[in-house]
């Protein structure tokens, strides 16, 4: 037995010794370092209510859209405005300069600026000014020999038509007469001058333009009936003639402030979000004891308007705007709606959107509750 025990002890000692020496701590698993994903909890309003700004800018209290650069005005641009066709014709330059020079009266200058599209309207009115108006047409003349005819015809025709309008002409004539005499009074004149001009604009503008094109097209066809393709070029020329816009890269909303965090465009920034609306609706629904069991359902639909101060307190007694009745169930409904608003009173709404909830109109409709 002793032999067995000694051998056994020796065996165990050897095994344990071997195990303790050779079986070291198991090597750790190679775990790839996985970076934890940052997760933001984003309210719906963050997506539905975005202020215009820069997506990468830091957040600021006051939103500001991306600053825009004023597009450079290209001296000899081929395309003007929204034109899809490239025209070789430069846009007709504004007529401002020349009349100013010729008449040597600075104040009347602004009036032609507003007018250019309805050239014909103002031209007939002012007896001395027609020359500046016609000067617009003469400029393209050197470019194209075909056009002058329609232009002249267009100008010629409307003139007799509008001459019958005596009323606007008179003040103008008088005013210009005064302007010519007294340059100091010119300051007053521009104020008066645009007003009478503005009245006739809408009606004659359409009527005047329509005949223009017909007249201009017809003579062209008569004159150069051989080539149909000329129509297009003529159209371009005409549009170039009519185009008074300066060649520029298009307008943009101006913002000189540095952009703050925001989206590409505004998507209803200050409105109450759907969540906030729901919360308000639920709160009011809880405060509202619904008038029960009446057949006249229409009078039970009540709209209540009330004003809140920035702390969410009622500023005045809620007013029934729509629905309800003076007596009977309608009155009960109206009163219950008003009571509901008063009972719920201080409303917990986001203070930064106070502008939107300073005045609230709530529709109480019992049919929604059942």
């Amino acid at each position: 037995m002793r032999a067995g025990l000694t051998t056994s002890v020796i065996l165990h000692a050897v095994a344990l010794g071997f195990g303790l020496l050779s079986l070291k701590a198991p090597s750790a698993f190679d775990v790839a370092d996985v970076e934890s994903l940052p997760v933001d909890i984003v309210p719906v309003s963050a997506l539905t209510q975005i202020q215009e700004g820069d997506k990468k800018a830091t957040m600021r209290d006051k939103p500001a859209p991306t600053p825009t650069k004023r597009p450079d005005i290209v001296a000899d641009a081929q395309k003007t405005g929204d034109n899809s066709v490239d025209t070789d014709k430069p846009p007709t330059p504004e007529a401002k300069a020349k009349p100013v020079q010729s008449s040597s009266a600075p104040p009347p200058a602004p009036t032609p600026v507003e007018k250019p599209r309805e050239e014909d309207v103002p031209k007939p009115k002012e007896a001395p000014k027609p020359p500046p108006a016609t000067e617009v047409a003469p400029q393209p003349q050197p470019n194209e020999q075909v056009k002058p005819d329609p232009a002249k015809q267009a100008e010629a025709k409307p003139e007799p038509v509008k001459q019958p309008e005596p009323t606007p002409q008179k003040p103008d004539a008088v005013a210009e007469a005064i302007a010519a005499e007294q340059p100091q009074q010119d300051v007053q004149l521009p104020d008066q001058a645009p007003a009478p001009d503005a009245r006739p604009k809408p009606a004659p503008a359409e009527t005047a333009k329509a005949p223009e094109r017909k007249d201009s097209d017809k003579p062209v066809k008569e004159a150069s009936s051989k080539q149909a393709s000329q129509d297009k070029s003529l159209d371009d020329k005409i549009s170039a003639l009519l185009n008074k816009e300066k060649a520029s890269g298009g307008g943009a909303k101006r913002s000189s402030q540095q952009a703050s965090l925001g989206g590409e465009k505004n998507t209803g920034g200050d409105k109450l979000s759907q969540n906030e609306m729901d919360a308000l609706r639920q709160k009011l629904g809880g405060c509202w004891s619904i008038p029960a069991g009446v057949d006249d359902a229409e009078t039970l639909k009540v709209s209540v308007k009330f004003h809140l101060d920035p702390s969410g307190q009622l500023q005045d007694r809620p007013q029934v705007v729509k629905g309800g009745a003076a007596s009977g169930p309608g009155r009960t409904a109206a009163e219950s709606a008003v009571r509901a608003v008063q009972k719920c009173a201080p409303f917990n709404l986001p203070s930064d959107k106070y502008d939107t909830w300073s005045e609230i109109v709530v529709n109480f409709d019992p049919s929604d509750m059942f």
Partner: protein
Amino acid sequence: MENIALAEPTASLSIWALFMQAGWVVKLVMLGLLGASIWTWAIIVDKLIAYARMRISLNRFEQVFWSGQSLEELYRTLADRKTTGMGAIFVAAMREWKKSFEKGAKSPLGLQTRIDKAMDLALTREMEKLEGRLGFLATIGSAAPFIGLFGTVVGIMTSFQAIAASKNTSLSVVAPGIAEALLATAIGLLAAIPAVIAYNKLSSDASKLAVRMEGFSDEFSAILSRQIDEKVVARAA
């Protein structure tokens, strides 16, 4: 986020470190199982040696017994020595035989039964020697896993309590305690598996030896019975 003190990732997980980390109950279980394993292997080694010797001695005795040597001479050589196995049975039977005839027992009727009884007794003693302590192997084989499991359960219980106290469920905190607890089960299995295998082998070996010795005792009994009958006939004649 607050930096919660984690279990040292450098904590050694070697077997010795695991043992030292364990609680005293688990340590006790582990030590007990280690002792059981040592005793098991001691028994295994002892039994293997004993059975091998027994097989050799049986072979040698059978060789001598069937060599045609007279039983008287054989008895004389064996009587003084310490005998095992078949030799012990032979000596027991021959002693009974001698006693009966030296004292001049007249009736041989009871002699046969007495010799058989003496041989059975010797056989039982031999078998006891052979099969002694095999029961311990059987016990270790069946109980050691449970003892180890007990240690594991206790260890896991304490480690879970520690985890609850540290308020951190990261795996690096949970793992060492469980690994340490599982060491107890590992040691239990380490002790139990050899014990079960050895028990099965040794008990079958012992039964083979027992069959051989029983066969010898039957044969020897037959031989003696024949001689008794011859002597009775000789006396009668």
